[in-house]
């Protein structure tokens, strides 16, 4: 039983992996491929319920004993991230059956989704650079394969190639950075990085440049994951080429994995050197949101537009790092949660429309309000939420996020942080322009008169996402409370 105790903390992951392994087998057994989707949903929903009952209700305590304290740790922080990842997983899986109907090897598709989610949760829980890297790679490799899943699609293959090459390159950067950190700190445990490194730096000359190099390479490597400018170039291509539900997964979950990793490394590991990297990251955050939004303005493909909007959202979250207060982290987490719903929701609407033969061009959305009022309404909700219009979820989280910059800027000597808030709100306004353009197409222009019905399962996913988008905007007390607990957990206070 000791083995099981040791693995106790890994139980959820093991469960997911188990199902992932079983799915290809199920693929052979059942003709009705929807079974696969339900089989995928089962562990995800179970996991989600467990997480909810723990984080929200406090009815269940996750196992935290065994070796896990050195490698992974289940706390509010990881729990919240895991909840976000699993929620996105559920939404993606729900809208997949209709989307990939007719594809071969659907079992693998679902299995890969489960694996990707597994990897992400591992990253969120990791306390050690080794396990963090492993998690990144599990999720990464699974998503390389997923983005190339539509084998009949030229674009899908291309997306996979690009994703894979840039992803591999970034993995190498990350690994090299980790190796350097390991070199200057002598440990791979995240919490010990800072103290050990300080000791080493004062003991050995010339290590500063190595440490800076390591920091920079880590920013680059993880910057790839969250698609921060200038490491973002892959994102639009991949989001456009990948199967739409997978684009949703990448934008809403995979990116958040990068955020989790960044938070852990920068805010726990090397927080001691904050004054070295905060301006650089602040500048990068502003650059990221601006470039993302500015290019999104001129996009004509909705998936590409959403991709650029994701880049911008990454910029918003990035401001947490230079601010570095637990309120900011809570805001960042909150935005991770809300963004998970609104961005995946938006992609799922696109997916549902693709299923019904509506194209991916923004112009194809003309008159959608007449053709499918519900989908148009849901899309409007998601887009307005992304733009930060109250009383929707995106507003609430952006409010906390930007306010954390204001909060920190009121501290003497840090007033430059106000520019993060200013850049954030200006970018929000800019983003409104292209979101509103889609709304305009849907509501103000005339399109074809054919009605568009809502695919049932995708509809469920969209409904779920929209309910959450509204709920988290109107009443977010409980969730924000969780985020604050999670932030406290991250800082260990």
């Amino acid at each position: 039983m000791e083995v099981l105790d040791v693995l106790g903390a890994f139980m959820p992951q093991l469960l997911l992996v188990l199902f992932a392994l079983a799915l290809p087998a199920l693929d052979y057994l059942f003709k009705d491929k929807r079974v696969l989707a339900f089989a995928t949903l089962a562990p995800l929903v179970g996991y989600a319920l467990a997480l909810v009952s723990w984080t929200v209700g406090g009815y269940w305590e996750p196992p935290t004993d065994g070796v896990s304290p050195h490698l992974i740790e289940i706390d509010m922080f990881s729990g919240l991230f895991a909840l976000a990842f699993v929620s996105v997983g559920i939404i993606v899986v729900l809208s997949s059956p209709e989307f990939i109907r007719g594809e071969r090897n659907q079992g693998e598709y679902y299995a890969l989704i489960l694996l990707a989610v597994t990897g992400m949760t591992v990253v969120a829980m990791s306390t050690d650079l080794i396990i963090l890297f492993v998690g990144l790679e599990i999720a990464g490799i699974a998503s390389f394969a997923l983005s190339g899943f539509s084998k009949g699609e030229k674009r899908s293959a291309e997306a996979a190639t690009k994703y894979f090459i840039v992803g591999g390159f970034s993995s190498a950067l990350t690994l090299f950075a980790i190796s350097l950190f390991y070199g200057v700190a002598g440990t791979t445990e995240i919490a010990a990085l800072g103290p050990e490194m300080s000791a080493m730096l004062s003991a050995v000359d010339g290590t500063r440049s190595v440490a800076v190099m390591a920091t920079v390479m880590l920013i680059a490597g993880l910057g790839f994951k969250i698609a921060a400018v200038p490491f973002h170039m892959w994102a639009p291509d991949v989001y456009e080429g990948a199967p739409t539900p997978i684009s949703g997964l990448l934008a809403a979950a995979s990116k958040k994995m990068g955020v989790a990793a960044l938070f852990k490394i920068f805010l726990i590991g090397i927080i001691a050197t904050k004054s070295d990297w905060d301006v650089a990251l602040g500048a990068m955050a502003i650059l990221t949101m601006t470039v993302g939004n500015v290019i999104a303005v001129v996009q004509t493909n909705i998936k590409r537009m959403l991709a650029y909007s994701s880049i911008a959202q990454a910029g918003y979250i990035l401001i947490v790092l230079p601010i570095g207060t637990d309120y900011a982290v809570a805001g960042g987490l909150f935005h991770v949660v809300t963004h998970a719903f609104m961005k995946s929701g938006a992609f799922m609407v696109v997916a549902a429309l693709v299923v019904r033969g509506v194209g991916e061009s923004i112009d194809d959305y003309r008159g959608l309000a007449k053709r499918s009022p519900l989908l148009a309404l849901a899309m409007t909700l998601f887009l307005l939420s992304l733009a930060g219009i109250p009383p929707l979820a995106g507003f609430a989280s952006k409010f906390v996020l930007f306010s954390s910059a204001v909060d920190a800027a009121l501290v003497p000597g840090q007033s430059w942080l106000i520019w993060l808030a200013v850049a954030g709100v200006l970018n929000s306004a800019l983003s409104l322009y292209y979101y509103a353009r889609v709304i305009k197409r849907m509501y103000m222009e005339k399109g074809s008169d054919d009605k568009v019905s809502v695919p049932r399962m995708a509809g469920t996913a969209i409904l779920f996402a929209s309910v959450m988008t509204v709920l988290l905007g109107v009443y977010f007390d409980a969730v924000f409370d969780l985020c604050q607990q999670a932030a406290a957990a991250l800082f260990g206070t």
Partner: protein
Amino acid sequence: MLEYAWLIPVFPFAAFILISILPKRTLSWEDGAGYAIGGALGAFALSMLVIWDVIAGNTMVGDGPKFEWLVIGDISVVFGIWIDELTAIMLVVVSVVGTLVVFYSGGYMHGEGERRRRYYAEITLFISVMYGLVISDSYLQMFIFWELVGLCSYLLIGFWYEKPSAASAAKRAFIVTRVGDIMFMAGIIILFKYVGSLDFATLFDGGAGAAVPTDMMVLATALIFGGAIGKSAQFPLHEWLPDAMEGPTTVSALIHAATMVKAGVYLTARSYPLLVQAPESLMLVAVIGGVTALIAATVALVATDIKRVLAYSTISQLGYMTLALGAGGYLVVYAGSGAGYSAALLHLMNHAFFKALLFLCAGSVIHAVGTNDMRFMGGLGKKMRITSLTMLFGAIAISGIPPFSGFWSKDEVLAAVYSAGEFDSLFFLLWAMGIATAFMTAFYMFRMWFMTFAGDPRSDYQAHESPRLMTVPLIILAALAFSSGFALFIGDGFGMFAEHSIGSLFHGAHHGSAMDLLAGIFGDPLTYVSLVLAAAGILVAYAVYGKPGFDRSVFAKGVGGALQRALENRWYISKFYDDFAVKVVYGLSLVADAFDRYVIDGMVNGFAFLGTKSGEILRRAQSGNVQRYASLIVVGLCLLLIFMLYIVPWGGW
């Protein structure tokens, strides 16, 4: 009785409401003339009672019923009624002329059909607010009615709105008088600041007046007089009044001769307790009055439109009153005499009667002939006996021939101006201008009369005498035009009115009996100067226009020609305003519009364009080549490295 004086405006106002909202069928005779007459008569009756009370020696100055208009903190604006002798004079004018004009309208507007309803609504509204203006007990209340009479004037000038000239004249009248109103408003705001109240009772109390610094008092009184300049059509804001003749003649008679345009004079008279504290303002009043009197009279010399002649004459006579008030102020300040003041008031009343008479006669003529242009009239005297006779009464009265009313007041005015010269020799010049004006007045009035009634018809028309509804008011007014000057012999040379109205400032104009007064007037050589000039004016008019065969082209030569052109172009003042409005103001607005469109909005659009354009440019970087993407990662990495090592190396390791 006085505490019910606030009911005076209520009668015509009720008529206004009824005429406005009653369904067409229930409106009786002439589409509401009945209601209008009823309202006017009600107000007339009540006014007479009030006047009776005033003559009996009762006044209500600051102690009547009150209406709290608004309160902000410790500032409270309260309205009430103010009845004194000055009010009584205006009440006489408004009630008599107003009632007669409404009667007259019953005949004059007969042919207007459906529109009569609007006419009666507007004219009753006017009468109502004019009463309101007269009985106001604070500057603000007065200003409110002041603007409302302006509104009615606007509406009635534009009565025939489909005529472009009428629509334009209405607008012009409103805007030009509003320039004056703005000054008025600024003036009372100044008083408001220093005294904290706009009640006459507070302001005219000597102590409150001391609260205002001297220069501010000069400014405030000058600005308030600015309101009078606009409303009473004084130079340089006088050009709207001739244009206002586009309205029905009844309107010209009532509003633009007898009542509303007197409001400016009334305001100046009302402000006397303040004006006498600011001699500079008094001089301004006098100069403006003198200049106005002269300039308007010159233009009237050549006008061919019968109503325009009367309009310029009105302006000129208003200038007289203003001049008298200005000079009277000096007399008050330096001699303690109210002669100028009482002269102005007497002239105000007299002028109201004879000018209303002249206008209504002109209306009668126009009604009969169908044109305003005197060049196409002539020879009407035989066909329109009553009209020509009553108009002759008016012309004599205005020319200052004794014993008609105009003589008494005009003589008093000139005498007052002359005696003010004792304190500032500028008044001698003004007196000279007044005398010259008297000459011209006699000339152009008889020119008009001769051109209209004498000689032979110069065009084809079937003229006939107007109906009784119109001629009876003419006869009544003619009687008044003859007799109202005798009011000079009431109460110390009309000075009773002055005395009570401005209270402690001075004592009666002339002490003594009527015989003393007469002796004073006819014992003064200056009286004969003006008489001779008036008679000369009439004679010249007869020579040139009354007798056939005079070659008038002699005027059109040389300097005379240039002068005539200048006069026909109204000294180019109107043109100047038009140019100012069209070229300067409208030009400015066009420039501003372009500025708004291209500079301010251009910046907004520029930002938007910048956004999309930079998006287009940045988008090109997304070449689709994955190795470029990877290269950019390396570039970014290097930049970050440089940034962290060299640009912002905060240290901390």
